[in-house]
């Protein structure tokens, strides 16, 4: 028995993916046009420098975002796990950015990171005139400001996931390691963290989901700028599909995004299911 809602959501996902795949093979401009036209859109896409900038940015952003979220989330979880007083309050503080929409996050950080308004100006006002922090307006560094804001927003959630994972680790394993003579850092490094493997999987899933779909955040923070230096595929696709009347090209870029997802996700799922079978 297969629930109709599962079928429905599969149809609404895969049906629309199929449709997009087809549109990427047409010359659709403003509105869909169903005349088959071959792979021209892909050729055009690969010829566009902006696409490669966007793709590279996704690599940089995705990689660093996931890395920092993991590192910060895990460290915070471990620290919070040390029988901390007021843990509840701290946890709420780390978690609340998750509640904000990316639009709000982007607006707040845009202001803080703006050299003329925020942090840099503040430091100058305080007398540290040599202080510069102008990544937001530096075409080479702008994408890293997206990382900062993204990490700020999502690392608390990652912390919650890891904390939940840590709370689920079997007590007696840790006791066994203590009796075996391991120190606290060794226990975490050799025993606890390796057993969080399924949590890592869930976290990776959620984070890569956020990274690949990151649209609002970049839009609100840098709008892809300066120039197109912090462009990401989601913005690229949105603009070409809807503002620039190049729906076919947008569809082609969407297909490339999906291909990337599959390329990352399928090996991950395979490793995880295999690991689940033999590892635990």
């Amino acid at each position, binding site marked *: 028995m297969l629930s109709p809602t599962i079928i429905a959501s599969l149809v609404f996902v895969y049906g629309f993916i199929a449709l997009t795949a087809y549109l990427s093979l047409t010359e659709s401009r403003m509105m869909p046009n169903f005349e088959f036209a071959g792979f021209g859109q892909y050729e055009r896409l690969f010829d566009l420098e902006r696409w490669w900038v966007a793709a590279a940015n996704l690599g940089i952003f995705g990689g660093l975002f996931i890395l920092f979220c993991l590192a910060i989330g895990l460290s915070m979880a471990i620290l919070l796990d040390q029988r901390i007083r007021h843990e509840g309050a701290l946890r709420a503080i780390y978690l609340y950015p998750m509640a904000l929409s990316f639009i709000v996050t982007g607006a707040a950080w845009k202001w803080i990171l703006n050299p003329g308004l925020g942090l840099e100006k503040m430091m100058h006002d305080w007398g540290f005139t040599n202080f510069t922090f102008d990544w937001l307006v530096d075409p080479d560094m702008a994408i890293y400001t997206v990382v900062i804001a993204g990490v700020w927003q999502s690392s608390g959630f990652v912390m919650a996931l890891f904390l939940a994972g840590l709370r689920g680790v*079997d007590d*007696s*394993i840790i*006791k*066994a*390691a*203590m*009796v*075996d*003579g*391991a*120190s606290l850092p*060794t226990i975490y490094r*050799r*025993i606890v963290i*390796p*057993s969080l*493997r399924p949590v890592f999987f869930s976290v990776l899933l959620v984070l890569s989901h956020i990274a690949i779909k990151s649209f609002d955040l970049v839009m609100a923070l840098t709008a892809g700028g300066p120039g197109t230096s912090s462009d990401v595929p989601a913005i690229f696709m949105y603009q070409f599909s809807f503002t620039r009347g190049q729906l076919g090209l947008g569809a082609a870029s969407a297909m490339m995004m999906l291909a990337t997802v599959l390329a990352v996700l399928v090996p991950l799922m395979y490793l995880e299911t295999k690991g689940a079978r*033999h*590892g*635990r």
Partner: protein
Amino acid sequence: MASLSIRNVRKVYPNGADILKGIDLDIEDGQFLILVGGSGCGKSTLLNMIAGLETVTEGEIRIGERVVNHVPPKERDIAMVFQSYALYPTMTVRENISFGLGIRKVPKAEQEQIVNRVAETLQMTHLLDRKPAMLSGGQRQRVAMGRAIARDPALFLFDEPLSNLDAKLRVEMRAEIKLLHQRLGATIVYVTHDQIEAMTLGDRIAVMRDGVVQQFGSPQEIYDNPANLYVAGFIGSPSMNFLRGRLVAEHGLSFALEHGDRTTLLPIPDATPALRQWLGKEVILGIRPEHVTDADSARRASTDAAYHPTEVDCRVEITEPTGPDTLVFSWFNGTRMTCRTHPRANAQPGGNVKLAFDLSKAVFFDPQSELRIG
């Protein structure tokens, strides 16, 4: 190897639960101490305190000559086997065993040698490269054991290490542990709530109840001369039978059992002077199933030609042929009795059987204090 001494140890958990109420236990170097007792009586708590995994509220724990109250676990030189195995799930069997060695900076080559030796002892050389998830319960148990014996600690702690095994494997592992103890001459503290394990493994048994040691002695001592009703009922499987009656002066001294208007007399041979003091008073008689047997076997087995056990006709409720013996559950004067008969006695549910009560092995308790008399 080292002796272990526990002096007036108390444990109050932070939430105020007063779990251990002054425990005193002493064992010598190389002895095998068993902690038994009902669920929640504080066995694991005591073990964890010895291991350094719980703080000591009051009192003193000594391993060898050293007071270890404030020594962290890793410096106590102990090895522990946990009830739930507590194998490191992400490591192979080999890594599980060598983890503690690596941390103690044992050279690689030596580690390997030790792992191989341990694996051979426990017959699991072929399992060394598997992860715990790929092992059966018994195999996991052996790995947990291997992890402990790979090191050469002053003290081994076992927390119900066999409770998750099926009966067959349990018997095998029991023998293995016993052998280990003999071979290594190790000092061992072993928690269990299985009386058979308690009886067969230990040099010394401490029977605990609600954070208090009820009796501390050798297995045979505890089996034959339980200090009180609780210990008597707890040790031995099936449990000892208890009968409430009065001591009367017939056939020397007899135990008189009244049921409705009938009275059954069970003469007591070799009554101690302490027991004689209770003449006329109510006492509780404790008698083990193997001392209530079919009359025929009793006669054959009797060593003392002079003494003839009392024989009584009882109604059989259920029989349990276990193979070598048949357990018979029957009603005797309003009390359910468990008896151990020879299969050839052929008791049938619903039928009757003539049971012989061998009171030379019986014990008596004060119904008020529940302490043993004599």
